[in-house]
């Protein structure tokens, strides 16, 4: 069964450093998302991406964040200058073709720890 994969599973970085979180969505999906989950809290939407551009972003997704689909398979989230409060689980999700049902499938997540 196709699945969303994410790397690394755990990333530790120092405050102020740049990090790139990587995702490989399900191969025939067209819509891509990043969500985050601070420990013990609910999952929060960050950004959605379709047709090589951001289709929507939340207030959390400020100028420190960027997304990119550098090739036909990868989808990345970059945090330019990490802050302590960026420590969270980051989940990538993907959704099917246009006109398909709304199911979003999540990857296993990357735990980001900012020290």
């Amino acid at each position, binding site marked *: 069964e196709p699945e969303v994969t994410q790397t690394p599973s755990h990333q530790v970085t120092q405050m102020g450093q740049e990090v790139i979180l990587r995702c490989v969505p399900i191969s025939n999906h067209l*819509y891509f998302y990043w969500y985050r989950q601070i420990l013990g809290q*609910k*999952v*929060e939407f960050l950004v959605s991406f379709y047709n090589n551009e951001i289709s929507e972003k*939340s207030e959390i997704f400020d100028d420190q964040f960027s997304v990119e689909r550098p090739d036909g398979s990868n989808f990345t989230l970059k945090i330019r200058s990490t802050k302590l409060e960026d420590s969270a689980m980051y989940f990538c999700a993907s959704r099917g073709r246009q006109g398909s049902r709304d199911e*979003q499938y*999540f990857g296993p*997540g990357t735990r980001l720890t900012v020290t």
Partner: protein
Amino acid sequence: QQQVKQSPQSLIVQKGGISIINCAYENTAFDYFPWYQQFPGKGPALLIAIRPDVSEKKEGRFTISFNKSAKQFSLHIMDSQPGDSATYFCAAVDTGRRALTFGSGTRLQVQP
């Protein structure tokens, strides 16, 4: 208005019992309501979903009940098993955004 309110925060059920988790929303533009199951250290996994044109959907031991007029929906887990112990999130998607708005989660513990 984008919020989805979920209760209870935690739930303990005996094996074989019925687990019931409730969610409520305000945004009438929501048109798709999935439930996700999350085990510790894992990503949310889609469990079951419903659209507002039906009042109930059943898949195996899992049933969603939907009350459009009250803007409420609930997940029922029949014959709950210890393997069902996880955190459950309700969510909603509106016609414009398509991003998921999650509830705050319910930690379910099924005691053997």
